[in-house]
């Protein structure tokens, strides 16, 4: 069986900058063939330079990526896409402005051919608190924030006082926050583009860092989970291949996006190798975060 395809959902209210983020991703996804499902018809506003040819509801892009509109049913479109899964390496869904992106990400949990990666919620720094207070859409906005694994606090330059909205956001969601203007985030980090999670800075505006750990002996599961639970807020992802003490003959894949940890087994432990874990994040070195 081939490895499952990473599945990312971009959520966020109307006008937050989801399409801007998507266009950055499409332009910057070198060597990575993306399939993008756009739930918001008005938003299939793909950078003209990327467009190679039209074909029905699908637009093939010159960089090997593929865009389609979801039309009536995300489910039907996604299943049809999976029939041609050899044509891409990663699926990204742009949820509609009122959708709960967590519910969309659930589909990856139900589908063996998919691997649930992150729920990225884009937030308009200048507008989010007003939307959240609206009696008709406030609950929709708050549900989106709660569903996020990573929050992109966009249009930070337009916010009157960024610290106010940051503080407010911390009260709404556990997810780490990346500040951005025009959705200028470090793509590799947000989307986990490098499969092994290990890469040096890709030259984008905010360089990121990684810290790797290895253990020669089987690892205590609860100790590792506790360690991940306590990582500083600027650690955004973790990826590891670990031999747990409680299933020492199995190869366990540890995957963290934001504060959401998934552990799955994908085969038997390949003998005399060390368990490895890589954390990736922004900002300073992890002073206080000592190796286990």
């Amino acid at each position, binding site marked *: 069986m081939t490895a499952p395809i990473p599945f990312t959902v971009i959520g966020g209210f109307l006008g937050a900058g989801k399409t801007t983020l998507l266009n950055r991703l499409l332009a910057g996804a070198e060597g990575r063939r993306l399939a993008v499902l756009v739930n918001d018809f008005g938003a299939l506003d793909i950078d003209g330079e990327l467009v190679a040819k039209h074909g029905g509801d699908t637009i093939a892009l010159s960089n090997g990526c593929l865009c389609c509109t979801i039309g009536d*049913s995300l489910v039907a479109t996604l299943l049809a896409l999976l029939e041609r899964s050899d044509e891409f390496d990663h699926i990204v869904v742009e949820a509609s402005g009122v959708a709960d992106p967590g519910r969309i990400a659930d589909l990856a949990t139900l589908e063996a051919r998919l691997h649930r990666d992150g729920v990225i919620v884009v937030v308009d720094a200048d507008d989010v608190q007003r939307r959240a207070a609206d009696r008709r859409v406030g609950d929709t906005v708050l549900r989106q924030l709660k569903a996020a694994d990573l929050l992109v606090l966009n249009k930070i330059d337009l916010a009157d006082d960024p610290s106010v909205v940051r503080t407010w956001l911390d009260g709404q969601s556990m997810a780490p926050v990346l500040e951005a203007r025009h959705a200028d985030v470090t793509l590799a980090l947000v989307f986990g583009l490098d499969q092994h999670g290990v890469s040096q800075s890709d030259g984008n505006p905010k360089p990121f860092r990684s810290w790797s750990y290895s253990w020669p002996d089987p690892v205590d599961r609860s100790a590792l989970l506790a360690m991940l639970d306590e990582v500083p807020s600027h650690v955004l992802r973790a990826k590891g291949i670990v031999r747990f003490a409680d299933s020492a003959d199995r190869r366990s894949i540890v995957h963290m996006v934001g504060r959401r940890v998934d552990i799955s087994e994908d085969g038997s432990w390949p003998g005399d190798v060390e368990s490895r874990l890589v954390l990736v994040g922004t900002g300073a070195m992890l002073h206080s975060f000592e190796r286990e």
Partner: protein
Amino acid sequence: MSTVVYSARRIITMNPNLPFATHVAVRDGRILGAGPIESLKGWGKVEVDDRFADKVILPGFVEGHSHAYEGGVWKFPYVGYFDRTSPDGALARGLKSIDEVVAALQAYETKMPRDGSTLLAWGFDPIYFGGRRMNLADLDKVSAARPVVVLHSNFHVLNANTPVFAKAGITRHTNVHGVVKDEHGEPTGELQENTAKFMAYKAAGVELAAILSDDAATWGFAKVAQLAGVTTATDLHNTLPDSTVAAYLAASASVDFPLRLLPAFAAFSMPPDEGIARLKELAKKNNERLRFQLVKIITDGSIQGLSARMRWPGYYDGTPNGVWNVGPDEIDRLLLAYHRAGLQVHIHTNGDEASEVAIEAVERALAAAPRWDHRHTLQHAQMADAGQFRRLKALGMCANLFANHLFYWGDVHYAKTLGPERAERMDACGTALKLGVPLAIHCDAPVTPIGPLFTAWCAVNRLTASGRTLGEAEKISVADALHAITLGAAYTLKLDEELGSIDVGKRADFAILDDDPLAVPPEKLNDVGVWGTVLGGRVFEAPRV
């Protein structure tokens, strides 16, 4: 140019100048006149046809809110609680316990090819089984090898067997919204919402939507409508892919196709400028039995699905407010675009917050682009109160209320979702008429069966499945209910000048009934038999099975 005069026990015309008649003359598919035979003879030579002499003739019924999927679902076995008529006229018996459902599926399963293909059934509704829910073990009795999927009547929930769960890897550790678990944390076999939809599509193959609207499904829908006396029906939400358009064009090209079909274009499926262009292009292909002219916007979910957008104080049992399928800003944008293009928009709103948002969107569209006689229609509007009906009236809007809900889900609304007071006034036909809002009533098939006489019975008697009367004050008369399923519904589709009553020059579309709906006791209205229909002067007798 032949002229046929049909004699009848009674003709109920919906024409106030001549409310009742004994004869109706038909020429070139249109109504030449009604009245006593003497008054029709002046038109020249007529041929008198007495085959309806002991029948009662009404204008053909108009179903303002149904879906053509009703014709497609019959490719799969029906396992609902209530009796239901299939397109070939056969009665599918209601199944009164989970064991009966299992037994019926076992019998069906033995006739399926031994190729491991999925058994998909539909129409199941556990609310009538005293709290007992279907579980994995029930459906494992149908087959422990073949995937078995049972869709509930609302199409948003399903039950499956262990092979389906095993293949999807759903266990007690699966932390996904919509996987129902028991008190020990084990999955019960029930899946809801997106999760249910995903598994249903996987089980049935991704072509499910296509299967449900192909050529055979289109014919099936027309036939099941014909059996209920319907001559005009909507397919009230369709993205209209080329394959569906081709099926509709092919079916409606035949003079034997017994229905005038009005698909409503799903506004959310493409940008409005493209959608408007597409709809105008499709309208050029209109024929006598197919009319592209309607637009549909879906706003919220459903009340019983706990996804309706409600105003304060929300769900009676404290369930959080529902979800927007299309949010308020987008409703504004879509509505304004289609409104400016001169099209009529039908807006699905179940909860009263959704109705409020839709009403305000129409208000803003009218301020931005004043327009007369737009007839934008709220579909369902189940929780609309008197204030909202006053606004509908003031804005020139129509209401198509979901009267069948009173019977099928009224008890649930009373006890759980709305509570007594709002359940009593839901689907407020009485208020709508009192305030002069143009009114239609509907079935939303396949959610509930198509049958305007039953829908009228619901609006007249307001009885729930358990026999409770919901809202004495909102009952309407039989005459008003018959108007709502003929001329009233035609008005909401802008077809009232062409059909909906028996009047000179209109299309010769009739419902042929075995009894007089105005003479039977109102509580027996749903027992009135339908002999068949006449469409454009062609007679379509319902098959007797």
